[in-house]
């Protein structure tokens, strides 16, 4: 099991404090900059490892950054704190994005990112809770995160805890039926302590979601299952922050975050082939330059 990096954790705490005190423009800039730093770290991880899911990583990083740097009630130095908010990355193939975010939060040393997917690294191609602090459950096969998160939300209710459960789902992943079993349970039990965020980039591994097996109207589907639904620009950090912290009713919340696969790297954006293509060294340099702007 990796251990916390106290210096990064302290920096993360200062960030959270500064964010809390800042006005909207500064807040937006802080999260944008932070997310792009994670994008750059992730590109290097994928380049070194020679594998990864770069398109989905770029797509989800504004969501992850907003959660870890402005929303989640967590303590990277106490990953087992009973009343922490729970975060589950159901689309486990974007582990690179999660690792970059967890390292930046201080759950473990940033230097560990260099081992991503290497022999015996704790940073497996899909996240493992036994090895990586901040990972709540092992994901990878799709359609697993939402049922587990429902169980976590039921547990929160039974314990009368104020902790909140956040789960990030891929949109293609919603073709797995297990999600709808869990969506039904969450609606039936009125789990208002649960927020599901859909990374709606409209691309799956092989093609567009709507050409493969139609998901729209996704908002109506979740509403019909008993959820409150918010739809936001998934790269607008302030809109995400607002959606994640909005006053909650008596139902679970689904935030449909409209995103672009490959976001931030012009030649990757909205291109299906970048699902798990590995960028060359030159492409990484070019991407880094774009992200530094």
């Amino acid at each position, binding site marked *: 099991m990796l251990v916390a990096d106290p210096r990064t954790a302290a920096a993360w705490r200062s960030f959270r404090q500064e964010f809390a005190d800042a006005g909207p423009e500064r807040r937006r800039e802080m999260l944008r900059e932070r997310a792009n730093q994670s994008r750059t770290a992730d590109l290097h991880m994928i380049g070194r490892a020679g594998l990864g899911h770069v398109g989905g990583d770029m797509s989800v990083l504004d969501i992850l950054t907003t959660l870890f740097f402005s929303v989640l009630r967590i303590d990277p130095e106490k990953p087992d704190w009973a009343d922490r908010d729970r975060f589950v990355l159901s689309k486990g193939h974007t582990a690179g994005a999660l690792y970059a975010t967890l390292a930046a939060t201080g759950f473990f040393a940033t230097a560990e990112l260099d081992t991503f997917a290497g022999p015996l690294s704790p940073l497996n191609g899909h996240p493992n809770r*036994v090895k990586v602090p901040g990972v709540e459950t092992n994901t990878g096969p799709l359609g697993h995160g939402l*049922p*587990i998160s*429902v169980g976590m939300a039921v*547990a*929160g209710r039974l314990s009368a805890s104020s902790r909140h459960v956040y789960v990030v789902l891929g949109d293609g992943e919603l073709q797995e039926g297990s999600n709808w*079993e869990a969506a039904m*349970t969450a609606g039936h039990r009125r789990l208002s302590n649960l927020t599901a965020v859909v990374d709606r980039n409209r691309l799956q591994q092989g093609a567009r979601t709507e050409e493969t097996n139609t998901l729209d109207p996704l908002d109506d589907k979740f509403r019909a299952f008993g959820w409150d639904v918010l739809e936001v620009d998934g790269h607008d950090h302030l809109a995400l922050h607002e959606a994640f912290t909005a006053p909650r009713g008596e139902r679970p919340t689904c935030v449909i975050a409209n995103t672009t696969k490959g976001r931030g790297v012009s030649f990757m954006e909205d291109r299906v082939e970048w699902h798990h293509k590995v960028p060359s060294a030159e492409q990484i340099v070019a991407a880094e330059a774009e992200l530094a702007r």
Partner: protein
Amino acid sequence: MSAPVQELFDCRVAFADELSALAREDERIVAVCNDSVGSSNLVKFQQEFPDRLINVGIAEQDMVGVGAGLALSGYVPFVCGASPFLTGRALEQIKADVAYSRSPVVLCGMSPGMAYGELGPTHHSIEDLSWLRAIAGLDVVVPADPAETRSAVRWAANAARPVFLRVGRFKVPAVTGDRDFTFGAASRLRDGSDVTVVATGTMVSRALEAAEEAAAEGVSVRVLNMSTIAPLDEDAIREAMRDTRAIVTAEEATTTGGLGAAVAAVVVTERTPVPMRMLGVHREFAPTGNTAFLLEHFGLTAGDIRQAAIGLARADV
């Protein structure tokens, strides 16, 4: 003179009684089920602990995931469903969410084997032992009677690791006496010097009956109740190989990967293997019939076990 009538028990009753007793002592205990409140015998549990019975409806993948989420939040969930659906429908959840994630869930496969007789192969769970034994880090436990079921439920509640418990519906006599379930250890219910019968679940009482009948024919049979299938008590198998000349395994399951295959894997890797017979279902779907008929059809009666044991004892090996 007719034989005394043996009292027979449905292990689900002992299971539910013990679960309720545990729930009274430990508020971490919860039950999760798939519309199986009745068939998992959880009606009383639900009456006593309405908030702690989470019925997700007919949704096994959700059920196991919800169980994992509860376990990862400090609860001790007993996830109950008919074994064919729990293990077949939610196998990937069992692998990823429970075993690989090391979530301390107690998976309770109710009415396993061919307990649902006439309902047919869709409702039989004879593959479960093969499937689950292949999953790393998942303990597979098959109690033989009500007393052992109680004891195993209590053990599982405190095991703090992923467990599969096979809870029988087909009625069996009491065979384990006052022995407590000991995780990972075979229990020697009868000693013998010619042949060892390694039995599990419903087959244990039949193995004891077979041993009694074999004794009358001059063949001495040791009976091991193998209530932990994974990890297997390999020492007990090696002892049997040393002390007796042959091994018979008996299980209400397929022979492609359950108890018989597990025992065989030990036997063939020893320097001097002993002859074996594996009783069970050999990659076949059952015809129509009730459980008693099907056990007879697949050669799983006391008479079949006796015959296998005597055959091996008298074979020129």
